């Protein structure tokens, strides 16, 4: 078990930074690329998680617990955000009978 869990000693921190940047960019790409609101919500989750992974990597690298506690709180906020976001989506489906994000353009002007 000790052999598995000390990956941070072998893998340089730069690789975790690179992985997190890639995952965050995929999330940004998805938000810009898709029109389906539920996929956009999922891409936001992906961005949340890439940040979580980077925080955990830094916390493990520095042997500092605070980063991991922060990740825990981010997970709490993400759970609340998903509940509210999905209920907004249900309301949107009920009111305009679509989950197309372009239907919500009245907020633009």
């Amino acid at each position: 078990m000790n052999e598995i869990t000390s990956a941070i000693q072998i893998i340089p921190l730069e690789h975790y930074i690179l992985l997190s940047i890639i995952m965050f960019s995929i999330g940004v790409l998805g938000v810009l690329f898709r029109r389906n609101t539920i996929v956009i919500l999922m891409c936001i989750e992906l961005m949340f998680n890439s940040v979580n992974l980077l925080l955990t990597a830094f916390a493990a690298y520095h042997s500092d617990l605070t980063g991991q506690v922060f990740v825990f709180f981010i997970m709490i906020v993400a759970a609340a955000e998903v509940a509210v976001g999905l209920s907004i989506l249900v309301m949107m489906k009920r009111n305009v009978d679509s989950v197309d994000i372009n239907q919500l353009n009245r907020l633009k002007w």
Partner: protein
Amino acid sequence: MSFLFYFLSAIMIISGLLLVFSKSPINSVIALIVCFIAMGGQYILLNAQFLAVVHIIVYTGAIMVLFLFVIMLLNLNKTTIPQKTSLTRVSAVIAGGLFFLVMIAASRQALEITPRYPFDGHTGLVSAIGKSLFHEFLLPFEISSVLFISAMIGAVMFGKKDPPGYSDPVYRNNNTGTA
């Protein structure tokens, strides 16, 4: 053991791209679940066992099931939403790529990072996190319950059906000021 890191990273990136580019929302959800499970593996590699368990339970157990539930409840798999125009899609890809380049350039400029404390195998274990959570972070931990209550109330309020004719402007004009 560094092989596992690159293997999980490849799974995460491929499933992330599948999430963005797959046609039906169900496939997107399943790709995201695969991505999250791989991320749980990354947490275990980082010796963050508590976070790995919480991540699997909260994300793949609760949040993704909620997504699947909403998709099936609203029957979103049948309804096809037209894609954005090809100009918008190309510019979205370019914008994402530019964002990636900027972040890479910023991280290249960063200073050399040196560990603050020597390596400690007990960092991410449940007992250490629990002690930190209930001593230093007790107040935020309790306040997060208020956040959950407000999120729950908000979700219920949004999910409630409006009274009949509520979206009618006549109804709204007659009821302003009397409520």
